[in-house]
């Protein structure tokens, strides 16, 4: 097996999809001639030509909307939003236009486009280039929303997203691009949208997470005295209730680990669904580990503290298991 960078998995997924399906096109700022601001589209212009790999002006509304129109008319556009924050100038096309196309046409028209966006904190890009912002999209009927967590899930989710008949947003935690893992590409590999994975089995608590927090969760579990089950949600809308519920019914404890403030995070939805459906099975209160209610700070020390570390997660889960009470977040004393 080869060591594969996550950014290579993006490239390979796009490349394989373009080979398999001649209607797949790519659009975005500097995705063509420059090979992408994160170098995840390198070589594709040369291989597939300028009609399929398209550099756009700095006009997110234009190219997001163009993706909608192209998708309706039979192409499969994959759009890059360089930093997810830029969706703030183009959200309408995605959540209002693309998402209602099928509904308003009673199934006659669909907008099977993919929005790939780099997202998340950890690299000192500051508060306007470091958020996940999945809450802008989550819960919108007609859309799907997935978050990658390593090279394999990147490949598997992107291939599925591109083949999906509806608009799909794939958030790629930027910090993972330059991470490597043992992985062998398999062009037939897919991760079905809507399906979570048990990334690690355990009996004492279910730690539900996604994205860059998945590796934090796995590290926390590995360092823990307790036996923690880690569920990588992968698709956060619509999410896999069955896998989460089955796990929580086994472990009796639910912890979510989210790269979001509590009022924006997906954990509220997961926790409430579990509480509604498996209330009697819970040995302890469900618990959420989130970001504090503050923008992402630039300074490296502050940003590291701002994000949940593996040690902090281990500690929180241990406290929950030992006391069967929801432990306070670190900032309750610090702030």
């Amino acid at each position, binding site marked *: 097996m080869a060591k594969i960078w996550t950014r290579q998995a993006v490239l390979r997924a796009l490349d394989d999809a373009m080979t398999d399906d001649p209607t797949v096109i790519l659009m975005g700022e500097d995705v063509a001639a420059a090979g992408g601001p994160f170098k995840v589209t390198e070589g594709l212009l040369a291989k597939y030509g300028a009609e399929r790999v398209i550099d756009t002006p700095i006009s997110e509304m234009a190219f*997001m909307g*163009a993706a909608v129109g192209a998708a*309706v008319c*039979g*192409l499969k556009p994959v759009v890059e939003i360089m930093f997810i924050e830029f969706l703030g100038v183009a959200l309408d096309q995605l959540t209002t236009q693309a998402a209602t196309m099928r509904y308003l*046409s009673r*199934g*006659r028209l669909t907008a099977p486009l993919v929005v790939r966006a780099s997202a998340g904190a950890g690299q000192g890009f500051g508060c306007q280039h470091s958020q996940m912002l999945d809450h802008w999209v989550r819960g919108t009927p007609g859309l799907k929303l997935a978050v990658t967590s390593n090279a394999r899930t990147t490949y598997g989710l992107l291939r599925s997203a591109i083949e999906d008949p509806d608009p799909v947003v794939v958030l790629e935690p930027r910090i993972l691009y330059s991470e490597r893992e043992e992985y062998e590409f398999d062009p037939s590999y897919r991760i079905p949208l809507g399906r979570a994975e048990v990334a690690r089995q355990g009996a004492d608590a279910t730690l539900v997470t996604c994205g860059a927090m998945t590796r934090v969760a796995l590290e926390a579990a590995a360092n823990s005295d307790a036996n923690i089950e880690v569920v990588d949600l992968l698709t956060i809308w619509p999410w896999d209730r069955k896998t989460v519920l089955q796990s929580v019914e086994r472990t009796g404890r639910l912890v979510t680990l989210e790269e979001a403030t509590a009022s924006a995070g997906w954990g509220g939805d997961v926790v409430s669904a579990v509480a509604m459906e498996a209330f009697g099975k819970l040995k302890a209160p469900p618990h959420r580990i989130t970001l504090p209610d503050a923008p992402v700070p630039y300074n490296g020390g502050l940003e590291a503290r701002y994000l949940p570390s593996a040690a902090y997660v281990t500690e929180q889960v241990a406290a929950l298991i030992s006391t069967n009470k929801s432990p306070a977040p670190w900032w309750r004393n610090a702030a």
Partner: protein
Amino acid sequence: MTVSDSNSPLARREALRNRRDQLQRMVEIRGVENRIQKLFAEGHVRGSTHLANGQEAVSVGIARSIDPDDVVTCTYRGHGHALALGVTPAGVIGEICGRTIGCAGGVGGSMHLVEPSVGLLPTAAIIGAGLPIACGAAMAARARKNGRVAVSIFGDGSANIGAFHEALNFAAINKLPVIFVCENNLYGEYTRIQLSTPIEDIALRASGYNMPGIIVDGQDVDKVAEAMAEAVQRARRGEGPSLLEMKTYRYSGHSRSDPATYRPAGELDRWLKRDPINIFADRLIAEQALSPGGLEQMQAETNEAIEQVVAEVLDSPAPDMREIFAHVSGESPGGDQRWSFWGR
């Protein structure tokens, strides 16, 4: 003869080759709009409606200049365009009354008319949304090398929204086969253009994108069609997009609840003197394609037919509760109805 269901949208569209039918379609649009106003007063219409009386020449002029395979995006002020493109009066009135007979099955409403078979994407209720979508349709057409064009229709007020700018630039730099049609009816909601826009002619903005910007008499269906035909040919030749500005006027207020008291005295009257239906009827009479008095007879017949459609609509069922969940995503009930553009 009923105006509707004997004819498919496609057949209705083909009929526009005939000049007399073009006039009849303009008369139909006027009649349907007036009837919708009444339906609203009668309590059959929810939410809002945006009528386009006075703008009929733009609708029919566009529709007769493009093929049913060309793609159109349009706004909430879309009844006239939908009818011109071929949607049946039952499809339009039915949608506005929330019935299954409506072109969106009654779940869309007045602002969301749609008919893929004649190229009409769901009309959008968000200002500016249709322009980038048309760019994408044009990209898809070019990828298929099928000579199709996309048309985006929007208002004068919409020329101040960011999407207008981004779409025109995007289309220009990619030389896309798209025609941007601005219906300058002098008002955006209750605001006259000179209060929102520091220039009089929206067409002027085309120069900022190195694109032709053409001012057109929007009350003359032949002038509209000529300007459209030229832009369409340009697009089909691969020479890129155009911006056409149709000088026109809406006789009614912005939406059902607007008495349009903000208009200067006499303005409406001046425009009524250049009524697009009268202009075209006079021309057809001069061409001996219509007999004197032919217009009045056409109006009477058309209005009668519209009454039949209204009766049919009001008799027809509302959607079943299950339609709430149908066609939300690929996993939803409703079945695969997918329309394939140019795949036929």
